[in-house]
């Protein structure tokens, strides 16, 4: 196997593994829109990183993290419609980033790579970021699994029972920022939400417990990465979108299989 292909596969699998459990929580907490909005604002991180000559991963994590803190703060004032504010902030930061990038030395910026990912260009350093960030996120999710799950089922009940509800909510959003930042390279900011949601939705069909759903989502995500990369090589299609198409094919297959199974059973 070629080196770049191995790196692409490793990078994609690294992202898909964390995207499984985090995507499950995104689905359970109905935060798909939040994830998409955060991904959109990631481009502002890219623009700022280029402008200030920072590491792009750090810049993206910083911008997405700031959005998480902002939303967590806004949610304390119950009167405000979070999704409206989120929509404004996310799309304005995307627009500002696009304007800023247009004024910069365009030769350095491959916009398409940030929007749809550039998995075949994953470097060793990217792998360090993906696995460093990914393992950190996985460890954190495992560590706060119980309170996070309890708060997901019913926040006030969990709070009365002593779970650190506000803390795990903020921590979860920050982890999401981290995963979006490292996933940017693989499928890009327009498609990263689908890598969170589609495997989790497919896993729901077969999982009996929350933990099963998280693990199966990771596995389906990894299969989607492998399948997408294969398709991309075979038919010379763009890799990031091919991974999402592969995820959708898996989702459909699992759905049809469970439907057929329950029909017969």
């Amino acid at each position, binding site marked *: 196997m070629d080196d770049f292909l191995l790196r692409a596969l490793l990078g994609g699998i690294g992202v898909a593994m964390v995207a499984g459990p985090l995507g499950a929580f995104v689905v359970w907490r109905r935060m798909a829109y939040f994830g998409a909005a955060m991904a959109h604002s990631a481009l502002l991180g890219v623009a700022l990183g280029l402008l200030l000559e920072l590491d792009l991963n750090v810049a993206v994590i910083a911008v997405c993290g700031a959005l998480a803190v902002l939303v967590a703060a806004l949610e304390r004032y*119950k009167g405000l419609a979070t999704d409206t504010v989120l929509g404004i902030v996310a799309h304005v930061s995307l627009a500002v980033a696009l304007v800023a990038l247009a004024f910069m030395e365009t030769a350095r910026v491959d916009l398409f790579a940030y929007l749809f990912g550039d998995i075949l260009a994953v470097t060793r350093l990217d792998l360090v970021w993906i696995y460093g960030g990914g393992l950190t996120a996985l460890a954190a999710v495992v560590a706060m699994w119980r309170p996070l799950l309890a708060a997901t089922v019913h926040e*006030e009940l969990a709070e009365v029972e002593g779970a650190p509800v506000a803390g795990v909510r903020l921590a979860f959003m920050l982890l999401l920022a981290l995963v979006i930042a490292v996933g940017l390279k693989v499928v890009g900011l327009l498609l990263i939400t689908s890598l969170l949601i589609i495997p989790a939705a497919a896993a729901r069909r077969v999982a009996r417990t929350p933990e099963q759903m998280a693990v199966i989502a990771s596995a389906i995500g990894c299969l989607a990465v492998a399948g997408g990369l294969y398709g991309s090589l075979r038919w010379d299609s763009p890799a990031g979108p091919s991974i999402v198409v592969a995820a959708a094919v898996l989702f459909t297959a699992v759905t049809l299989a469970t439907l057929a199974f329950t029909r017969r059973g």
Partner: protein
Amino acid sequence: MANQATEPERPHGLLVEVAGIDLKLGGNLVLAGVALTASEGEIVTLIGPNGSGKSTLVRVVLGLLEPDRGSVYMRPGTRVGYMPQRVVVDEMLPLTVGRFLALGVPAAGARPRAVLAEVGAAGLAGRPIQRLSGGEMQRVLLARALLREPDLLVLDEPVQGVDVTGQGELFELITRIRDRRGLGVLMVSHDLHLVMASTDTVVCLNHHVCCTGRPEAVSRHPEYLALFGPLAERGLAVYTHQHDHRHAVGGEAAPLAAPPPRQDAAEDTAEDAAETEGRSHG
């Protein structure tokens, strides 16, 4: 305990005491000067129309909401079992009743099954939480509250979504649990007569405390009667009802030309229920 030494005025067995609570939500004064106590072995029922601030007061007692003014005391070390008004678990979350119960208490072991049996929901442990009937869900929520070995049970509309027979059974169950465990109960209901037999103290709330006391006393209190109208007298021995209007086909009140034919009492009550609804929101 040091705390008891510094606050000797609180009676023994007192679990909760809130006083002078003011709370604004979205610009409206939802609670005004509200006071409430609950003690060990006592069942206190909050009653009041929809939107009268019952759940809000419960949240203040639980420390989920900070009042703008007033004091909230809970005996140090009190363990609370809480049953929220509404728990809907997303279909996308594969969760059995057993797992749902275990979320409230770490390392619950075999106790969830025992507590499920105690609330008359034995055998539900393996059922997906989304596949429960209204009554089953309320019992499971009660079981989760009990799993914490609480000193105080806080139940927000515990018989919600349950048919009338089931409502009576649930209130009996709550009374039996109180008798057996000797814990305090603070619960919310919107119907006094259903809880009459199972409550020691009633607090009638409509943003302020209208009246408070033993259920029989509250049911005759002028403020209670003004709040709930003639509907409140349902089931009481003395029932006189004077119509000064009749109801037109569309339901709106029409002037009374001749004395209407006397209708049976049940129908009167139904009409009055509609009238009370409109009045109590004003």
